[in-house]
């Protein structure tokens, strides 16, 4: 079994919801979710962002769903950190 501890995502989002609301929506997905969102580039209607999410166990599908529901689009997963464990094999 493995758990995802850290994700770095390249996300294109509309200006609204703003960076804070966007990060808060992701952080609300689980206890201990730590989210850092950097706006890399601002266009007329969109913002290119890098979102770093850390927790003891991240659920990528839920994160993707939330990004989509806020109007964002996941361009790429730039970095992952996964912890393995032999206690429970899949």
């Amino acid at each position, binding site marked *: 079994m493995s758990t995802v501890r850290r994700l770095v995502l390249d996300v294109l989002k509309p200006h609204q919801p703003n960076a804070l*609301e966007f990060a808060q929506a992701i952080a609300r997905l689980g206890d201990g979710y730590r989210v850092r969102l950097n706006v890399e580039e601002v266009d*007329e*209607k969109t913002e290119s962002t890098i979102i770093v999410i850390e927790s003891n166990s991240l659920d990528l599908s839920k994160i993707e769903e939330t990004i989509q*529901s*806020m109007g964002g689009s996941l361009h790429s997963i730039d970095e992952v950190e996964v912890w393995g464990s032999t206690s429970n094999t899949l």
Partner: protein
Amino acid sequence: MKILAHLRLLLQITRTHDIARRYFVTNGFDGTLTMLGLTLGFRLSNEVPMEVALSASLGATIALGMSGLSSAYISEAAERKKELRELEEAMLSTLDDSAHARAAQLVPILIALVNSLTPVLLALIIMLPMWATHWGVALPASPLDLAIILAFVLIFLMGVFLGRIGGGFWLWSGLKTLAIAAITSLLILILEI
């Protein structure tokens, strides 16, 4: 609470909460002034039976409500669709499952309801003395006079509301809208004579 939070989010992402507030004031003002004009007209003619005044006022109220509902819905739905299309073009993807798509559907309805219910509610308040007379409640003054006073009070309160939004002095703002109502009344008086 969850529904309210969701509605707040939709208004926020479409930045329409100030539009709804604007519609509230403009159509509320429209409705109140229309009712003031109508009531003043009845008052000046002196011979209008209360049933006729009530029916005419109710007719005007329904028309104000329907006008507010349809005009705001049609224009806002077109605006939201245009904005969603432009955003989808910028995002290079569809936003079907997003809050933006839901906002494009729900926000025009919300704004249309604000635009419609505000003048209806204010007109019904102005009509209260007429209803009271119709139901046999004794009033200290003529129902039309009381309706006119109510219209002035509501117009003043809308001014106060505007003043508070703009951060100005509430009394000054209230007096300004009251002056508009006074000028309207004066014009009606001049034309009726």
